């Protein structure tokens, strides 16, 4: 039961963030800043939980905190969009900078909330997010995640917007020649990924624990989500299954102490390592037939041939 609980939890996080990466990369922007966007989303969402007065009704808490997480993700990703689309900066370097900046910002702000101690920890109540269905503990993000997954598939493959977005990632010059504004589409792609990444970061921290130390950011989840996206071959449906697969490993790391696996006597770090090793092995096998958007990572220049 515990395994299912944590698998579902992490699967939704990885899926949301990987979907975010998917939107961004289909528009042609490599979003390596997902880790930082998650950190900011988690920080702002939790800050909302901390500052809201005790008597606030549950629905308001959910709406405000999740909305704030998504919104902050959008705002933070705008930094990446501005640098990489308008200023044509190197997307990988810009993203790396935003990752570093996010952790530093989160630590500084989290320290602000604990005037007495100096620790970068925030404590909060996650009761409004948790439901019990027949003995299985699930959290609100399961429903949000499924809804956003279906919405993403619809947008990506059944709307004009999705088609145009993908065109900008495959061949921006061709897209431009038929009147699509490549810069606008790329902005949309990055902002959507910021929204999903922000919610993902919040979904990673809140349901599992009631106190979080922001010195670790989100401990590599954003990068794992990138691996999920690659394993999912940039397709939302496949990303769902890839996320499930990775989440099992991640969940094992969490519960290894309390199950039959404890008898093996392996340290927790082994399980923490597993998703990363698994993703390297999978990458090694799938790299030859990759379906990556062709134009990702290249700043779009109207004048180039």
């Amino acid at each position, binding site marked *: 039961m515990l395994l299912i609980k944590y698998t579902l939890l992490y699967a939704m996080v990885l899926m949301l963030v990987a979907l975010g990466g998917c939107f961004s990369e289909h528009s042609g922007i490599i979003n390596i800043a997902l880790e930082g966007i998650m950190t900011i989303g988690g920080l702002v969402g939790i800050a909302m939980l901390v500052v809201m007065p005790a008597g606030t009704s549950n629905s308001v808490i959910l709406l405000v905190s999740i909305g704030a997480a998504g919104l902050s993700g959008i705002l933070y990703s705008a*930094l990446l969009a501005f*640098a990489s689309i308008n200023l044509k900066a190197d997307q990988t370097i810009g993203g790396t900078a935003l990752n*570093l900046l996010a952790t*530093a910002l989160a630590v500084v702000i989290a320290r602000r909330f604990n005037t007495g101690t100096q620790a970068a920890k925030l404590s909060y109540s996650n009761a409004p997010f948790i439901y019990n269905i027949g003995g299985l503990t699930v959290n609100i993000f399961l429903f949000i995640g499924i809804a956003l997954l279906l919405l993403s598939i619809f947008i990506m493959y059944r709307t004009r917007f999705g088609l145009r977005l993908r065109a900008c990632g495959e061949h921006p010059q061709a897209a431009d020649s038929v009147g699509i504004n490549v810069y606008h589409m790329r902005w949309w792609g990055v902002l959507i990924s910021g929204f999903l990444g922000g919610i993902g970061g919040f979904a990673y921290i809140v349901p599992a624990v009631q106190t979080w130390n922001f010195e670790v950011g989100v401990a590599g989840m954003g990068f794992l989500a990138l691996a999920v996206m690659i394993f999912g071959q940039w397709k939302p449906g496949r990303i769902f299954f890839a996320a499930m697969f990775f989440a099992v490993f991640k969940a094992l790391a969490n519960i290894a102490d309390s199950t039959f696996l404890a008898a093996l006597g392996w340290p927790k770090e082994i399980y923490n390592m597993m998703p990363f090793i698994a993703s390297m092995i999978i990458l090694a096998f799938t790299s030859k037939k990759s379906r990556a958007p062709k134009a*990702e990572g290249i700043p779009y220049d109207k004048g*180039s041939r």
Partner: protein
Amino acid sequence: MKKTKSPRLGGGNGLLTIGASFVCILIGLAFGFLFLMALSWINNPGSSFGFIVSRAWRYGFKPIIMGGFYLPPISIGQEIAAAAPLIMTGLSVGFAFKTGLFNIGAAGQYTLGAFGALYCAIILGLPWWACLIGASLFGAAWGAIPGIFKAYLNIHEVISSIMFNWIGLYAVNTIMYGGGTGPMYDASKTKTWNLRSLYPDSVIPDLGLGVFFKNRSTTIAIFLAIAVALVIAVVISRTTFGYELRACGYNRSAAKYAGISEKKSIILSMLISGALAGFGAGLYYLSAVAEWRPMESTALPAVGFNGIAVALLASSNPIGIIFSALFISHITIGGSLMNSQYFPPEIADIISGIIIYLCAFALLFQTMLSGRGRKKNAPPESPPASEPPAEDGEVPGKEANE
């Protein structure tokens, strides 16, 4: 691999590059000051503007810009001790940039280097120079793996380096901790054994520097780092070997056509990068500045990522890296000297984060500085080189920072 190559970046006009770096630094510092002012305003709501500015200046900004000179000579010694590993991680990232690779894995290679250094010192009891070699070997191995993935499987080095960063961190922590009874682990202090008291032969000698700076951690490490930087400068721009590596970075296919073994070059570049980062970890831990804390090291060492800032600020020039590393270590030490009652030391990290962000479009500043920005509103980078689209499985777009 597709390149958005920029002929002008560092291409001869050194003054322009330095000017752009200074613009980055100034804007970064300005943002840092704004943050300090915001924090002091939150701490003392309703106080006058002058009070906020003076408080942000006296307890925050002044220590940051004075850095090691705030509390001499001890903090100068600290600054120098902290600069040595930074020079090395900066060289690691910069060397990879020069050869067209983005070594975001310096943090992981540094972690492995720390393990190698401490293993050679504590378990094997080797002298310090042998421990340094050990550290470099471990770092080199950890750098070579993403290189192999890149050369043979065409997996982008950024993705695989990130994965191996975390794998390395967890592996090193597990082995050092050893379930609480590992031979390298001092359970009573929850960190690895103190080198200075137990293995004095493994500590890098300080030749009197420690007495001068009243800080025993200030060893000759800084001179070793500078020496390596000079060697790298010669290798990269004055030897055939360096030329081959750079050629691969510019255009993999063209290099292959010219008879350069491009797979070997990629692996060697990453291997050398890793060795440099590992050497840096050796310089730090064998100077006995600190011990490794396996239970608390849940995040990758910041010096690995600061190496990116160092390399970018210097446009990957090995000589420039010496100075930019001194600068980053200057503001980091300054951050730690701030009055932590008012301001958290991570302000320095924010500043270096902003600087990296600005460096990502440093070319824009160069264009503006050179006065050509207004005339043609063209993008600062030249169009993508006319190469075939990226091979499958790659996340392309790394810019050759030459």
